[in-house]
């Protein structure tokens, strides 16, 4: 994973690493840019929002702020995550407002050379295309980079 330092300045700039946090959702590996994440918390029961769609788990108290919690797995169209103590809530920020995303577990922080990011290959599911910004190969596994804006902006319309 060493970056090749090219003579061209432009190339050097591109070769700068970005750090991503990888985590699993329904057995698949996903990641988000570390700067998008505000904090990671252990799962604790949430307050159910009446009439909410299935991927909106409810709301949680984050130091006095009421923040919505989405089930990433359900959002991606996978089976709903069985919420348990082992699960984590990744708190991200959407337009300045915190939003919690339920994931199975957080794996590690990985450095990614932007050049290594591959475009999402065409797949049938429209949702997948929208939610996945690109994919990378890390330690022989495929890690999906989440398009955060797409993932958290949709529910407002749904509700």
């Amino acid at each position: 994973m060493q970056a090749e330092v090219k003579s061209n300045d432009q190339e050097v700039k591109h070769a700068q690493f970005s750090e991503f946090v990888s985590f699993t959702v329904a057995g698949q590996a996903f990641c988000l840019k570390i700067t998008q994440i505000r904090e990671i918390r252990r799962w604790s029961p949430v307050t159910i929002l009446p009439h909410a769609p299935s991927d909106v788990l409810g709301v949680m108290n984050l130091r006095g702020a009421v923040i919505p919690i989405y089930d990433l797995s359900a959002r991606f169209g996978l089976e709903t995550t069985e919420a348990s103590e082992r699960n984590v809530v990744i708190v991200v920020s959407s337009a300045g407002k915190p939003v919690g995303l339920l994931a199975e577990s957080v794996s590690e922080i990985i450095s990614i050379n932007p050049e290594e990011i591959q475009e999402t290959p065409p797949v049938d599911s429209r949702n997948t295309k929208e939610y996945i910004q690109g994919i990378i190969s890390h330690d022989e596994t495929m890690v999906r980079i989440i398009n955060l804006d797409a993932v958290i902006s949709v529910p407002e319309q749904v509700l």
Partner: protein
Amino acid sequence: MSGSIQDTFFEECEELLEATDEGLSAIEGGDHNPEVVNAVFRAVHSIKGGAGAFGLDELVAFAHRFETVFDEVRANRMELDEPLIQLLLRSCDHLYNLVAVARDGGETDQAHHDMLIEALDKYIPEEEEDLTFEPMGLGGPMDVSAIDIPAAPTEETYQIHFRPLKDMYSTGNEPIFLFQALQEMGELSIELDVMELPGFDSIDPEESYLSWNLTLVTTEARSTVEAVFEFVEGLCELSIEGAGDAEADAAALAALEAAFGGAPADPTPVSEPAAMVEETPAAPFEQPAPAPTPEAKPEASGGKPAAPKAENAKSEQRGPNPTLRVDLERVDRLINAVGELIINHSMLAQQIANLDVADVRDVETELEGFKNLARDIQEGVMSIRAQPVKPLFQRMARIVREASSATGKTCKLVTEGENTEVDKTVIERLADPLTHILRNAVDHGIEKPEDREGTNKDRVGEIRLTASHRSGSVCIEVKDDGAGVNRPRVKQIAIEKGLIPENAELTDSEIDNLLFAPGFSTAKEVSNLSGRGVGMDVVKNAVTGLGGRINISSSPGKGSTFTIILPLTLAVMDGMVVSVADQTMVVPITSIVETMRGNDDMINNLGADGTLLSIRGSFVPICDVAGALGLEKKDDQPPGVYLLVETETGQRSALAVDDIHDQRQVVIKSLDGVCGEIAGVAAATILGDGKIAMILDPESILATSPAVGAFDTERRMSNAS
């Protein structure tokens, strides 16, 4: 950058317009105190000045006309009669519009604009046609003297004593510019007075020690000379002594004093014109008439010191305390933090109660103290957001004027309790509903003048707008002395619109409340004024949205009264903590009439799935909260507790919940931005254990509950038959 300065200007405009409005209303009410007149004049003048700086020509031109006319009034050259007052009030309204247009863009009503300008121009003396940006003098009496310095200007010698105060320098004013301005008017000789200059050792570099004696020979009017010092007014000691106008001034003063009901006999000023003008003779208004002293001091003082004094008087009316402009967001952050503190307290209390320690009495005592302090802080913070309703009421006076002139009716708005303080957000969100109610009152309530005379009423309709505190809530009342609700017609319209069946038998109050029904508008055709097709249901929604209620009472021929009851604050409310399908929820206390534990005997089935609760012989429909919210209950046990709630229409229903836990104050957390609107839920709150609980909205729960909704219509129908 310029944007932010402009914002400040518009903010100031708002305040200045309010001051203008207030002054004009006082004048309308018969208060012809020169200070009030001056205050209005200054406010309009400042608007003109600021608008000029931003190149808002239309506003400048209009403000200038207003100012010119008002200057005539101020100088006693024109009598403030009723038509003029009305014109000035309408002009003030128009100023509001112009400012709004300048700020938000949009179009001014050109016809109205031209009409007002034409009307104002009639009052403007002929020589005052140009639109030069000439600053006006501010004091009263020296303009009176201007009568005696008529069109043909003669050369006049003024002795000016000018001593800047420290503040003048700190505000960036520079005497040399003033002197230059004077020099342009005529022959000026300047003499520096360094008498007060201390020894070098004791000199304070920030203090002001110098004063000047100026002799100006000019053909300009005295007011023009004084105008030079306009911007350092209050920041310096100033006396301008004209050779010829001393007697004229004294005479005019005497006339003025006589006209305004005499000055205090005691020569000691009512209030010193503030420390700033300590050595100058007291302002002319405070001098007994006729001016007694041989030194001709009152004349010498000119009108200048009067201004700071008037300023004082004004600030006294508005409350003498210095105020601080704070970003609303900061206050809100503080309010949030205090909310947290209170939640934190209850969490602590809960955990201490759970502790397995034998003696926690000391801790509990301290905790009690903590709680009281937290409450104190909370109240203090809440009071920061509280504002008097006065500006709102003033705006309403404008609405009534506009509405009256649009409908050709004559009405006056009488306001009471305008110092009642209400949460800022409440005030803001009250503006629309109140506007609507008042327009309705003028449009539908107050009769035409000729009709009023026919029924032995005063030609001028009276609308009374009252604000008061009533046991933890704010009560706002709009009462008109008009014809009252025309019940047969209201009923007729409701039938036409299909709101009620044709043969419905309704009580008077039920008919009155039809006004709030969605889609009800009594205007036969959509008039420009109130009939926008929306009607009073919008008013009701706005009020309910604020957690309040609105009632109407009316008696035919005597008038109607709308009463709005609002919570004092939007941030905290009293709630009943209940559990519904294993979730903890909060129901606002205000909507609960009664709570009761139910047993099977009280429940009666009606049809396939309707259930009624019998309470002391009457039956009310039961609404299962869990079902209405789409929540599934884990066990199948019937709900144990019923909350009897009453809707706006007086319709009672019983909300079925599992259990009641507590009654407590909860901090309201908006769900805006967290998720969209949820039927049945008003907001959320954080409980003592840190969990979030939904605050329910009974009205909306009942509306979503098919059983009760259907029953409601059924009952209407059965009522009808």
